[in-house]
């Protein structure tokens, strides 16, 4: 691809840079608004100030100071806890399952795996109503279980890890078997150490996906203290729908952790998408 458009790099950079500005502008505006005083936001008609003058943390204090109405720290804790728990659970059960579908031979294996793959085309919304009823019946409604277990049930991670495990030479496994390793030993000492890139990709995607998850937490929880950040923001918006300063402060608080995680892991993430065909959520 390098040879395409080689001579006209500057004419390439101009639109690319303008687009980069357009892509960044909404996020910068969110942060700018979050640090502005209310009169600068509402009275800012036509001023379009990008640098808040004077900058104030008042909006953040407003967001954090209404703990009974908007327990933002509790929502943050819920988001962190649930995202970590789902990531850990997915990595564990999906690695075990992927090992079973790629390296072990058992009756019904290929039929069950075909069933897993087939369900990947089912729109998530088809599952919402029946899952809601099942969660109620299982006594999980409005608990961490409701936020964690359904989020870890999909087939995608199994599919992804299995495809990766299949690329590991069988000879390595045979050698470990001769050394007296059982299936669990082979998984621990041969497969997993060689699968770090795939595990990292799955882990990061699961974490980001759970952090941003919206429909599940909206429907499977009920009380204010069991909400996660994305749902919490919409609750906040419902009450303060024209107070853009506090609203943008809340939005920034929810967006910043996942943005930092992305910037740290961006190489893995972008490589992971091209390897797996997973384009986000």
């Amino acid at each position: 691809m390098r040879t395409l458009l080689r001579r006209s790099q500057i004419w390439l950079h101009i639109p690319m840079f303008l687009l980069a500005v357009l892509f960044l502008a909404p996020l910068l505006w969110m942060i700018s608004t979050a640090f502005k005083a209310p009169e600068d936001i509402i009275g800012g008609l036509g001023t379009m100030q990008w640098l808040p003058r004077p900058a104030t943390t008042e909006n953040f204090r407003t967001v954090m100071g209404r703990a009974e109405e908007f327990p933002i720290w509790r929502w943050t804790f819920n988001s962190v806890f649930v995202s970590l728990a789902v990531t850990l659970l997915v990595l564990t059960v999906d690695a075990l399952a992927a090992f079973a579908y790629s390296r072990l031979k058992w009756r019904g294996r290929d039929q069950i795996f075909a069933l897993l793959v087939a369900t990947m085309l089912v729109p998530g919304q088809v599952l919402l109503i029946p899952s809601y009823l099942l969660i109620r019946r299982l006594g999980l409604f409005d608990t961490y279980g409701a936020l964690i277990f359904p989020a870890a049930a999909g087939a995608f991670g199994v599919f992804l890890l299995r495809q990766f495990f299949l690329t590991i030479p069988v000879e390595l496994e045979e050698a470990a078997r001769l050394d007296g390793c059982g299936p669990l030993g082979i998984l621990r000492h041969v497969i997993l150490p060689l699968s770090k890139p795939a595990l990292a990709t799955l882990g990061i995607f699961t974490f980001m996906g759970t952090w941003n998850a919206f429909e599940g937490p909206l429907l499977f929880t009920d009380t204010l203290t069991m909400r996660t950040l994305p749902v919490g923001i919409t609750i906040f918006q419902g009450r303060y729908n024209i107070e853009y300063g506090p609203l943008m402060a809340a939005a920034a608080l929810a967006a910043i952790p996942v943005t930092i995680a992305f910037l740290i892991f961006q190489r893995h993430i972008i490589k992971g998408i091209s390897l797996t065909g997973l384009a986000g959520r």
Partner: protein
Amino acid sequence: MSTRALPEAIQAPPSRRSDGISGFLFALPHLLLFATFVLVPVLYGLYISLHRWHVLAKEHPLIGLGNYGAALSDDIFWIALRNTIYFVVLIVPLGNLVSLLLALGLASVQRLGTFYKIVYYLPVVISIAVVAVLWRWMYNTEIGLINLYLGTVVGWLRSIGLPLAPFEPLPWLSNPSWVMPSIALLTVWWTAGGNMVLYLAGLSNISDDYYEAASIDGANAWQRFWAITWPLLRPTTLFCLVFSVLGAFQVFGQSYVLFTSIQGGPQSGPARSGLTLALYMYLQGFRQYEIGYGAAIAYLLFAIVLVLTILQFRLLSNRDDATAKA
């Protein structure tokens, strides 16, 4: 690639011995989760959709296809379907065009590539709740960033003598016919980076030799794109289109955050202009508590998506075969 990849992928290499029950035991933890929260719900949802099922009612009488019949004769269902299709028609070509252009730019640029890639991808990692709250602020008619800038640009163009009418603030979210294009625009911003990376991966699989040979033959950039890039990129395009359609039909968060979550506003946008199938399922199932009806809407959505996916694979992969033979 494309359709043929799947059956191949399903077959694991044959193994000489059987691992007996232990194989199943390794798969069991995931299978339990999968069965409880995917497999059972898929079947249970179908069962629910065949009943008149109000959450608070004690009895759930079987009514066969009654809910489906009710949906097909429900004007609001048709509004939701029309809005959803309108959104799909807007977002799938536009989103894929933007993703492809960004990827072509990234593949050609020699410096700053990583910077551009990170910036274009950044919105993808942000929750729809944050995205929609933010865009609702930018779409504000009086003091939203977009109208402020458009007003400035129009004013400037008038001042240099262009015969333009004075700027009228655009009713992004308040005029029914603007709502779906506005949602599509914010969705392009939110999702373009995802497919961009896939197109970029597809582009990097095309050998430089083709371009060099074409350059020697005197082909210009445009001819090289149509003769080399476009046909060789078809498997990627097919993949992106299929999953864009699948995702676009499920549009929910945008309308929910922009309209439904606002107390005292119209629940599904002005004149129901933001009502999508998924939102209608939510409103019926979780606001009206008619979960039988909601489940039927979800299954109609499923049926539409399934038919479209099969059609796309048929249409696009046949052409894929034709070009492979040619």
